[in-house]
């Protein structure tokens, strides 16, 4: 194409003065810049235009604003840059191919692609005539669309991956807790044959990990007792057996939890609070005793584990009203940190722990006789685990408080290194 244009430029020079119509040029190349003049070509303007063309058509010093070659240069050596164009009202002129190169370069940048092309000097629009192609238009639209939808697609992809992960977790948790037989009944239907991907499964399974995490906080205390009723009680009527059916057991669990909490709060919480306060720094020394901050974090970790049955908040809430050391603890709790990770990981591992405890209980012949179903042994195991852990945590706290009470600072003695002080102090206990 450039060859053709070079030829045209040559002819133009040869018979200079003969005005060329721009539409003519447009036919020759499929993408041509339209001179600004052509738009003003009205009948009334024909005469001045003709007059202009009678004097030398161009200034010899006129140069292309892109390649800086002047008309004069082209007389000595033929240019390969195509015909001259004057695309806007200001003094800038340029070679057609220079302009087209420049426009193509701007189109490389997607952010500029949709902007109109402007003269860098006078900022007037440069009009481009090009073959209309449905294909190119469609392609350009598609490019734009793809750019816009990319981020949405990424979010959707991550979201569905998360959904699938949650669902798989939910299935695994149900099999772990309920045992194969009951889980089949829950997921595949009563006979294990008429499997149907019902809304219960579609929403319940992916919600399982979420519910497990949330149940360690107080956020869902109001709704938690109702959820199992919705998800596990199918159309069949209630009937009470001993031991109760899985659906009834699960429905009863939140109430059991509430009962346990009440008992704990009534009888054990005062001790818990007292010992926790003893372990923590007193108001006067907070923030100075670096060592105690470390201790405090450890204590909080223990609390986190305990919350498997929602105990965490049962202990924490009254603490708000407690002394200043308690207030300091509550403040720490709000910070997202290892405690949150602890809470989430603990919640997600809980089905595994429950299944392991159920397995241990299954080794006892007496329990095997009383509770023939794996599911019931698991639930009992889970409850036992929570109970044992609470007792251990409380005992641990008691021991810590006792240790703290026994602490005293050794006076500096020659030859005694600081590490030795610690060991002697430990030995004394």
């Amino acid at each position: 194409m450039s060859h053709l244009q070079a030829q045209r430029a040559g002819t133009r020079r040869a018979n200079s003065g003969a005005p060329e119509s721009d539409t003519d040029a447009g036919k020759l190349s499929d993408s041509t810049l339209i001179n600004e003049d052509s738009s003003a070509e009205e009948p009334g303007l024909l005469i001045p235009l003709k007059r202009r063309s009678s004097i030398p058509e161009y200034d010899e010093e006129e140069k292309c604003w892109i390649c800086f070659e002047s008309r004069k240069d082209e007389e000595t050596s033929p240019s390969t840059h195509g015909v001259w164009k004057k695309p806007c009202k200001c003094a800038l002129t340029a070679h057609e191919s220079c302009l087209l190169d420049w426009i193509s370069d701007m189109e490389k940048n997607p952010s500029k692609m949709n902007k109109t092309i402007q003269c860098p000097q006078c900022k007037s629009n440069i009009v481009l005539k090009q073959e209309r192609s449905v294909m190119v238009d469609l392609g350009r639209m598609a490019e734009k669309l793809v750019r816009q939808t990319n981020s949405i697609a990424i979010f959707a992809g991550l979201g569905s991956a998360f959904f699938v992960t949650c669902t798989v977790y939910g299935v695994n948790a149900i099999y772990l807790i309920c045992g194969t037989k009951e889980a089949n009944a829950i997921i595949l239907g009563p006979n294990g044959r008429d499997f149907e991907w019902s809304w219960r499964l579609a929403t319940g399974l992916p919600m399982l990990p979420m519910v497990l995490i949330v149940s360690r906080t107080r956020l869902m205390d109001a709704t938690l007792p109702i959820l199992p009723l919705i998800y596990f009680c199918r159309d069949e009527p209630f009937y009470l057996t001993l031991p109760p059916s899985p659906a009834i057991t699960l429905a009863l669990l939140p109430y059991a939890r509430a009962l346990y909490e009440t008992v704990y709060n009534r009888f054990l919480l005062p001790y818990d609070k007292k010992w926790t306060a003893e372990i923590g720094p007193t108001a006067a020394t907070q923030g100075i005793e670096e060592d105690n901050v470390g201790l405090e974090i450890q204590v909080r970790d223990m609390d986190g584990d305990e919350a498997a049955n929602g105990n965490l908040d049962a202990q924490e809430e009254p603490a708000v009203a407690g002394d200043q050391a308690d207030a300091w603890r509550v403040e720490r709790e709000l910070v997202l940190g290892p405690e949150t990770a602890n809470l989430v990981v603990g919640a997600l591992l809980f089905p595994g722990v429950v299944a392991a405890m159920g397995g241990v209980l299954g080794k006892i012949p007496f329990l095997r006789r009383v509770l023939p179903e794996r599911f019931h042994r698991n639930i009992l195991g889970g409850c036992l685990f929570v109970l044992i852990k609470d007792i251990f945590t409380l005992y641990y706290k008691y021991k810590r408080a006792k240790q703290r009470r026994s602490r005293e600072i050794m006076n500096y003695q020659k030859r005694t290194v600081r590490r030795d002080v610690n060991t002697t102090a430990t030995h004394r206990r």
Partner: protein
Amino acid sequence: MFAQKRLGKELSNIHKSLPPGISIASASDFSNWKMDIQVLDTNPLYADQIYRLNFKFSGSYPIEAPEVTFIKEDGRDIPMHPHIYSNGVICLDLLGTNWSPVQNVESVCMSIQSMLTSNTKNERPPGDDTFVRSGYRSPRNINFVYDDNTV
């Protein structure tokens, strides 16, 4: 080819005349030129100082912008300016998103000269330390945000 022809034209223009305060230090080939610029008024930040600009042209100059940085050479220093990093990288829209082939070496020098002349702040851009440590030498790879119209 394209770039060479145009740069040849620019060079012959530069040899003919240059605005005051701008001079050519070296232009031995068509890929790397060095220009010296000087602030002419009595701006205390730059008085009696000459700074050296390094121009790097790609094969598609002037369609593509040249890479323009200040360099430390022959006792020339990097001028103090809130848009000039201490490794010489210049944050100027003209050299990035607002480049157009109508610009040339001379006009870029004049823009940078006036950028210095109008400056009164004796400071580096925010985050200069981390920027210089990150080792970016090529301004092309940086997405500057041209938010400051005062300088």
